[in-house]
């Protein structure tokens, strides 16, 4: 069974701080995605990638960078965190031949 592991589970940082959220998937899926979840907005796509070294811009990319270092690892970077980035972040992966996403357990980020 495909597994997507996110770390950390919870993170608190100060405004202007530097944060990296990590995501690793163990099934060699081609596609990986970063979403943020906010009440009233659902899940919104930040960045995604279809392979190592590839990066695509999602629907709400402002203030975020991402990097896909390997087939397994996809990182989300907040270089100058702001309170508006307080959210629950989900990583997901998908195989090229399958429409189903596999989600991680989420990272809850609080920017104070």
């Amino acid at each position: 069974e495909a597994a997507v592991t996110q770390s950390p589970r919870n993170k608190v940082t100060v405004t202007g701080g530097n944060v990296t959220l990590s995501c690793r998937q163990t099934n060699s899926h081609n596609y990986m995605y970063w979403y943020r979840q906010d009440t009233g907005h659902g899940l919104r796509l930040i960045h995604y990638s279809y392979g190592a070294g590839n990066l695509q811009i999602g629907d709400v990319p402002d203030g975020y960078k991402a990097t896909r270092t390997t087939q397994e690892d996809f990182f989300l970077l907040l270089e100058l965190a702001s309170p508006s980035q307080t959210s629950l972040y989900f990583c997901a992966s998908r195989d090229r031949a399958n429409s189903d996403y596999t989600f991680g357990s989420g990272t809850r980020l609080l920017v104070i």
Partner: protein
Amino acid sequence: GDSVTQTEGLVTVTEGLPVKLNCTYQTTYLTIAFFWYVQYLNEAPQVLLRSSTDNKRTEHQGFHATLHKSSSSFHLQKSSAQLSDSALYYCALLSGSFNKLTFGAGTRLAVCP
């Protein structure tokens, strides 16, 4: 771009009664599939059911939905709600060359005794 509209933020229903969660969409891309995801407290979203065929009823775990492209709708229904159905439900569509998943804002279903 694509958009998914879920008009109800909260639906409250008594156990044993029918429930319907509304979902409409707009898409400018080739849409591959439509989904209902369910998210229980402190868990990740998971697929409840999916469809890519117009006017075909899809069922899973007592829930059903029919994709109607003529009205751009994919409503979720259940004939008898259970307490365990209380959760957050998302309608979503998968589209484009990178198979992006676009979610609605979500509907929280609360089933009361």
